[in-house]
């Protein structure tokens, strides 16, 4: 199988388009007219809290659920009514989905058998695919003899072996422990770029999404709140929901007038429209630092300080009662009860009305 190991095959790579996709479960509407375009060879993550409809969206692309209304296209062709087994997708599931009665090679070769590929060629391709995920030597093991991470790698090899149009990943890392999760995350990204396959990845872990994606679609309550590159979402979230969900922020009370907010005596811009009034501002830890003498700022008392390897993260209580998180080098050692003065960098902030 050359397609798997060859560089990006732009002719084969598929675009996936969702147009006004609506999905009801009984009387419960879980997707409210979803629009999404995934470019050929692109890696797009659907990120959101549980129940936001991200898994449903993925299952609709796979064909495991029926659309209530709307259209799903692959390379422009309407695939809404093509059943899952003829939609030519590869999928990796959250729970371990290897067939327990088949060994690793038999699992991997399954999709090729379904496509009636000749036995010798099928076995050769399956072995190549297993080599690709680094499990060539495990071909005769049974799933119960593998660790969780290995099982998911086999599942990945199994999904890729048929050179599907789209790779769909439904929280494939969430059952794994932290270290394996990061390893496999990087490996998925490497494979995806090597194969050049269009990929949709569902996760509730913002760090995972930021690390792995070309673009991220942040979903909430059955809609896409914002879609953009990881940098765009982190740097300029378009709504409070995105700001709260992507990256870490502290909520700081502020008042807005004429599109400008004043925080601790520093005037900063406001993202989007905000009528004059009182708001909470989302402030990233890296926007906050200790104030120099003479700079405007706010006094505060350190409540906790956590050593995180290359940096420390400290929580500081300020007079209005809110808790502000800052990040600083480990050379600055803060302890509980230390008095500090904080200031904020002049970057636009996202605000939401105080509830």
């Amino acid at each position, binding site marked *: 199988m050359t397609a798997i190991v060859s560089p990006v095959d732009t002719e084969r790579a598929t675009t996936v388009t969702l147009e006004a996709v609506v999905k009801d479960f009984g009387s419960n509407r879980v997707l409210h007219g979803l629009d999404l375009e995934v470019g050929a060879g692109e890696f797009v993550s659907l990120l959101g809290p549980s129940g936001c409809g991200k898994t449903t969206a993925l299952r609709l692309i796979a064909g495991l659920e029926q659309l209530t209304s709307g259209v799903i296209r692959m390379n422009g062709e309407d695939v809404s009514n093509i*059943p*899952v*087994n003829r939609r030519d997708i590869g999928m990796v599931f959250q729970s371990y*989905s290897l*067939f327990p009665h088949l060994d690793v090679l038999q699992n991997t070769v399954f999709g090729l058998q379904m*496509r009636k590929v000749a036995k010798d060629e099928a076995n050769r391709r399956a072995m190549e695919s297993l080599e690709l995920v680094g499990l060539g030597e495990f071909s005769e093991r049974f799933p119960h003899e593998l660790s969780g991470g290995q099982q998911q790698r086999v599942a990945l090899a199994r999904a890729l072996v*048929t050179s599907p149009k789209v790779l769909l990943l439904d929280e494939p890392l969430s059952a794994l422990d932290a270290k394996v999760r990061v390893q496999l995350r990087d490996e998925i990204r490497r494979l995806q770029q090597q194969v050049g396959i269009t990929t949709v990845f569902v996760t509730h872990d913002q760090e995972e999404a930021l690390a792995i994606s070309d673009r991220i679609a942040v979903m909430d309550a059955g809609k896409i709140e914002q879609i953009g590159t990881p940098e765009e979402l982190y740097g300029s979230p378009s709504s409070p929901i995105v700001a709260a969900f992507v990256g870490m922020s502290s909520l700081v009370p502020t008042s807005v007038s004429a599109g400008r907010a004043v925080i601790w005596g520093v005037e900063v811009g406001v993202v989007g429209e905000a009528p004059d009034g009182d708001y909470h501002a989302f402030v990233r830890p890296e926007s906050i630092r200790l104030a120099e003498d003479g700079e405007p700022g706010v006094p505060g008392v350190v409540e906790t300080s956590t050593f995180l390897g290359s940096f420390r993260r400290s929580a500081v209580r300020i007079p209005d009662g809110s808790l502000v998180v800052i990040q600083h080098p480990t050379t600055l050692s803060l302890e509980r009860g230390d008095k500090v003065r904080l200031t904020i960098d002049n970057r636009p902030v996202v605000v939401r009305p105080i509830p």
Partner: protein
Amino acid sequence: MRHSASFLPSRKTRIIIGTLVGLFFAIPFVATTEYTFRDVDGHSTIHWANVFDPAKQAAYRPIWTGLGNSLLLMVVTVAIVLFVLAPTMILVNLRFSKLRRIFEFFALLPISIPAVVLVVGLAPIYLVVGRSMGTGAWTLAFAYGILVMPYAFRPIQAAIDSINMSTLSEAARSLGASWPKTVLRVLAPNLRQGLLYASLISVAVVLGEFTIASLLNRQNLQTALLVVSRQDPYVSVIFSLLALLLCFLLLVVIGRAGNVGSHKKGRRK
């Protein structure tokens, strides 16, 4: 799994329980065997010799007929369990999970209805069956399919509950398998143990069934044994023993056949 070892009874307890249960089953069996060797004064093999006496074969013909019918019924009933009950259960569990409770209720219902009562309902149905499909003994399999349902349901349901059927089938489907292929290639092999036990218990029920066959005037092994016992109780008991042995052998053979697939797995462990 490891810590569950501490909940296992000790070796001594196991031997005691094993002996008691063994005796419970062995005593009637030994007594029955002893009975077949009884003679007017003491013991002899005369009754066993009678069984193989060509001159008496005519008298025993009902037994051979009954046995043939029972074996046929056994095959059809197992087929009903494997090809009607099991696929229905898979479908209910995968696609109509709201029906699970109701389905379970109906599947277990026959166990609470005595066979005699069941026949009251079955008799008029079998009038119709008799007209359309003939009165062959094999038609009893429809009634037996219902009779074994509660027994076959449990092991299959336990097997279904022990695997993640929805993920397995979705994985198979996403890899290009049609529904029939998904069931045959992925689900059935993983439900094998449950299907096997369901088949075994169906065989045992069918070979031991008397009431329905008798009341619907069909001949099977048990009704034939009764007929013969009226002429020669010793021979009837001998055939009962042989039937038990046959049943035992069948269970071993089916059990072996069903385990063939798992040997490979066991060896590699």
